[in-house]
């Protein structure tokens, strides 16, 4: 786990992700997407604290804003917190040891895009096997539909995450704890 000095950064980055998830950006055909922030948290906090941070965001949304829901809380934790946290390892395997800034950037971009697509795939399977969507065709219908939108939405996620990580690495590299762990510098 992280040192105590990282507690304020956990608090701020969780608050940031909460706000980011409120602000939808339009994509195409009258549909919108919003930042999920799982990969971003993984770059700031490392994989474990990122899962906890995202779970707190989802919990507050479910309890206070009826967003996400109580019954679906576990599914949401898997789709966004766990899959988001795993982005850490995606970035790690894509960037390799001592990556250039360019390669690191490309890895962060790909990992955040993938976190959205994989989260959407998991969600598509979950809703596809639920009785509510059975009449509509089940997974055969939900998987392609969810993937279609989230392949596009994922580009937004990737662009935002990449811009944030780049900016932070310029102005305040110390807050990128996940990145520090990734480079094996310890924390």
């Amino acid at each position: 786990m992280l040192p105590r000095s990282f507690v304020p950064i956990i608090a701020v980055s969780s608050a940031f992700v909460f706000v980011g998830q409120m602000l939808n950006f339009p994509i195409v055909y009258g549909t919108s997407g919003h930042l999920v922030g799982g990969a971003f948290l993984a770059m700031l906090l490392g994989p474990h604290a990122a899962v906890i941070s995202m779970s707190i965001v989802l919990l507050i949304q479910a309890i206070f804003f009826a967003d996400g829901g109580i019954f679906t809380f576990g599914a949401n934790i898997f789709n966004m917190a766990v899959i988001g946290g795993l982005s850490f390892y995606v970035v790690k395997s894509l960037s390799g040891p001592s990556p250039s800034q360019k390669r690191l950037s490309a890895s962060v971009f790909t990992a955040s895009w993938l976190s959205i697509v994989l989260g959407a795939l998991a969600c598509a399977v979950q809703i596809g096997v639920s009785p509510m969507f059975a009449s509509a065709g089940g997974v055969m219908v939900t998987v392609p539909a969810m993937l279609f939108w989230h392949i596009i939405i994922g580009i937004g996620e990737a662009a935002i995450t990449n811009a944030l990580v780049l900016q932070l690495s310029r102005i305040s590299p110390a807050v990128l704890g996940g990145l520090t762990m990734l480079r094996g510098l310890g924390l």
Partner: protein
Amino acid sequence: MKGITKAIVLIIIGLAVLIPFASTYPDGLEKVAESLGIEEPEPMWSGLMPDYTFLFTENSYMTRLISGLIGLFLVFSVAWGVGWALARKNRV
């Protein structure tokens, strides 16, 4: 600690500025449900500020801003508390 205050101020400014530009179109999941003709069932628990509205007033700029600020404060506090409880004690 100065950086933390700065970051929070920036987040609040970002929220206040971007709320009017936030898209009200359905998101990916909502769009899929909509296109398949599936309606969201009545939730078991409808929250205190359902869908980011405050005190059941209509969905306007102020209600979204206030509920956003409340949510921001709640997430910040809970994350701080949980982080403090879980973080390593042996380093400053």
